[in-house]
């Protein structure tokens, strides 16, 4: 009887270091473990070099130029918001409309991503990326 009682006491006593260690590890975990990012993919087509350059005469074709300074549509530099609005408006007529994005060599990648995101929001999927 006395033996049993002692065993029980000992077990209770030894829980503390285990809890300590587990707690430490748990904290370490929470700090180190980075939440997995939710990633999106934006698909584009590359122009085939043996093909003719994009036919310029098509009217319902959306052309966006990206430079180091920002976004250009119809020859003028425009802020992102107005480009986004224009893309949404134009996409209402036809979702099959081809989109041509021309990037200059020194343009940052984020502008291209922003533009592609905007096109994706509008439901446009025929997107080609050219380099100028």
């Amino acid at each position: 009887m006395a033996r049993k009682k002692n065993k029980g006491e000992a077990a209770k006593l030894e829980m503390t270091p285990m809890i300590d260690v587990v707690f430490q590890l748990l904290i370490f975990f929470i700090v180190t473990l980075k939440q997995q990012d939710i990633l999106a993919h934006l698909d584009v087509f590359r122009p085939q070099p043996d093909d003719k350059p994009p036919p310029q005469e098509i009217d319902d074709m959306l052309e966006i130029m990206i430079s180091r300074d920002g976004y250009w549509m119809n020859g003028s530099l425009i802020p992102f918001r107005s480009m986004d609005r224009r893309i949404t408006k134009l996409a209402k007529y036809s979702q099959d409309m081809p989109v041509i994005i021309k990037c200059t060599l020194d343009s940052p990648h984020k502008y291209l991503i922003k533009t592609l995101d905007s096109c994706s929001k509008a439901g446009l999927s025929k997107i080609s990326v050219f380099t100028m």
Partner: protein
Amino acid sequence: MSKRARNDAGCDVDMTPMIDVVFQLIIFFIVTITLDQEINEDIELEYAKHGPIIEKELERSITIEVDDRGHISIQNAQLSLTKLHSIMANRTKKFGEFPVYIRADKDTKHADVKSVMDICTDVNLWRVSFIAMNDDKS
């Protein structure tokens, strides 16, 4: 004296679950940490809230990383353009067409992204996907 002996015995019995738990946690660690090393952590992706989410990477897909200084890597192993070209050429020979993801930093110059895309077109891959962060939290 007898008390001490009893205490020692109790200690012996209770070590087992602690070791079990610690061991389990360590194994979990090793597994997670290896997964983390497969991507270049220096790359800061741009946010694209409307892009389709990648649920699971497609079979045979390849992710090419381009950092803000134009360094190209696959699974955090840096490559030269010629090496990348030979890798891509070999892969197309083996599998035919396969999905290509380009994971480029938001401040990467388009010229560096273009050189990767040119390699893709060179080996007859006309479709590439850019990876962006889908900001679900805000």
